[in-house]
């Protein structure tokens, strides 16, 4: 395997979480599936990273590799440093003191992420008693505090109930409380609001943001919805076919999106405040098969600006973290006219979307 690239000179104060050239390769019966292929990012305390992409773009696998819950066929390379401490390749027993304690995760489906036969307080106190060595009583009191913190009314009563007695939004609040139990430094929300209805979605996102600001945690917000991450993140990484295709500070990304895929994603967001003829445009085709993926830009087959260069040579993202990075040969805002001759009709649609 390739040696992890070191990005820039090693700074004395390491960021809270830094992933460098992270690769998650799955050894499937069909062949090697590069679910995550060379991803780098860093998060400071109090900073939020938005991870956006279609289903199967590798965003979930990326965050799962940080939590050690990849399928057993996964092979993780590269480097993930939490406060300067390496996480990749650490023995499971040692890593268990980090998962749930310093990095915690909120899962997508609150319906299945709670154990149906255990009471809420049992599930909440579990990790505190494991990681912080709290006694039963102390942990129980803290569980009530946590339930209050995540905005659950009647926390004492709720703590004695079973998951099926709670609504979906409530349950997601409970899973957030579980994630917060050990005061983690990094909180990962893997599509934490996708399974909830929109009004509850907003409440949960606001809650996450509030708690993050209060505690100065680093947060990774995974979503397939650009609208969800737009106002709540400091930086956004757009993933496609296991690689980051565009990564930049949030404001910059929305103001000057460069990658064609980001452009297409934004074009696919439904909006109520635009005329009917500007309805969302679907991205043609489907994401590529990650096993049979060839050289060249992975998005080339679905891209309106793709030419021979795109099909042959894979564009590189660039190494400078913090800057606006994008992996595209024909970024938005450059030589659109030149491309127009190659493929007729479609590019003008794209231009319209930019306008």
């Amino acid at each position, binding site marked *: 395997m390739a040696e992890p690239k070191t990005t820039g000179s090693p700074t004395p104060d390491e960021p809270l979480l830094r992933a460098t050239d992270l690769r998650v390769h799955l050894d499937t019966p069909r062949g090697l599936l590069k679910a995550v292929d060379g991803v780098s990012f860093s998060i400071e305390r109090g900073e939020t990273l938005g991870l956006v992409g279609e289903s199967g773009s590798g965003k979930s696998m990326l965050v799962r590799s940080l*939590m*050690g*819950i990849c399928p057993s066929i996964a092979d993780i390379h590269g480097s993930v440093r939490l406060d300067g401490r390496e996480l990749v390749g650490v023995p499971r*027993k040692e*890593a*268990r*003191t*980090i*998962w*749930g*304690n310093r990095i*915690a*995760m909120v*899962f*997508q*489906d609150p*319906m*299945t*992420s*709670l*154990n*149906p*036969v*255990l009471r809420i307080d049992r599930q909440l106190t*579990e*990790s505190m008693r*494991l*990681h912080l060595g709290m006694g039963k009583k102390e942990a129980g009191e803290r569980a009530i505090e946590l339930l209050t913190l995540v905005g659950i009314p009647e926390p004492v009563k709720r703590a004695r109930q079973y998951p*099926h007695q709670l609504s979906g939004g409530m349950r997601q609040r409970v*899973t957030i409380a*579980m994630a917060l139990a050990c005061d983690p430094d990094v909180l990962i929300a893997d599509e934490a609001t996708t399974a909830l209805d929109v009004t509850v979605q907003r409440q949960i996102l606001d809650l996450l943001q509030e708690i993050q600001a209060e505690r100065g945690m680093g947060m990774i917000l995974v979503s397939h919805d650009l609208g969800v991450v737009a106002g709540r993140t400091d930086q956004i990484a757009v993933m496609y076919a296991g690689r980051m295709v565009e990564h930049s500070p949030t404001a910059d990304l929305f103001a000057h999106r460069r990658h064609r895929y980001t452009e297409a994603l934004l074009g696919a967001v439904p909006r109520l405040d635009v005329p009917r003829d500007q309805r969302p445009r679907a991205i043609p085709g489907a994401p590529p098969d990650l096993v049979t993926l060839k050289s060249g830009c992975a998005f080339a087959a679905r891209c309106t600006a793709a030419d021979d260069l795109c099909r042959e040579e894979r564009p590189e993202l660039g190494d400078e973290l913090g800057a606006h990075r994008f992996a595209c040969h024909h970024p938005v805002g450059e030589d659109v006219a030149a491309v127009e001759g190659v493929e007729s009709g479609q590019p003008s649609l794209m231009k319209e979307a930019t306008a």
Partner: protein
Amino acid sequence: MSTLETAPEPALGAAEPTGLRPSQIKRAKSGKARKRPSILLWFAIAWMSIVLLGALLSLIAPGVFPHEYGKAFGDAKQKPFAAWPEFLGTDGLGRSHLTRLAFGARVSMIVALVSVVVGVVIGGLLGLVAAYFRGVTEMIIDLFSDALLAFPPLILLLALSSVYEPSQTSITAGLAVLTIPGFTRLTKASAIAQSNREYVTVAKAMGAGPGRIIFKELLPNTFPAVMSYSVIVMAVLIVAEGSLSFLGLSIPPPMPSWGGMINAAKDDLSLYPSQVFVPCGVLFLTVFSLNVIGDRLRAKFDVRDTKL
């Protein structure tokens, strides 16, 4: 040879027409399961209470029975309902049927309960371990339970009875060993289904180790399935113990057992049918009740709702 090979086919074909519309049958089945008259269940519970009471009394307070199980007290082969309190009549040696059936219940219940508990503990543990670790561990455990399943049960029990002096302990041990693979498979299947669910992933993401996941996440969730299965296994074990007694390979004579009572009276079947039918009826009702209760438990716990 060819007739042997073709023989099962008509039977299969005969079963086919009812299976033409699987959706309809499924609906009919589930409907039946939900609307089963509960009077049957109440009857089953009442009957099992009587049996358990008899077993318990004979175990802790044998004095409450008016006659001892090993001693004759009056005319042999009295008909049921001829006298009070010996309303079940007497056996071929003039011993009280009532007392003997109660002591027989004690044997059946102890053998069935202890075997099931041993089977659940050992089999369940093996199943959980196999389900969590998979891979080589699962292979070895599967091999073990397959070997046990492949072994003809009656041969094992006969061998045990002939090697060791037949006693309650040897019978219980033999039956317990036979129940292990069933419970191993059941818990394994159930735990594998559970371990694919998100809350197990959540536990892993919280840094939980194997022991914690097996005992706190998987075990409680496999409990319902194991619970209802063990009631049904109890019924099977009672019949198995009865068969062994009938063959004279169970508890030695003065101590009564249901199968042994049937065996002793079988020669008089044409002249004194009640001699056989009384213990047969008790055995039948017990097995039937256990099946009803087990089935009911299964239906109750059989949750297809993803919300739970």
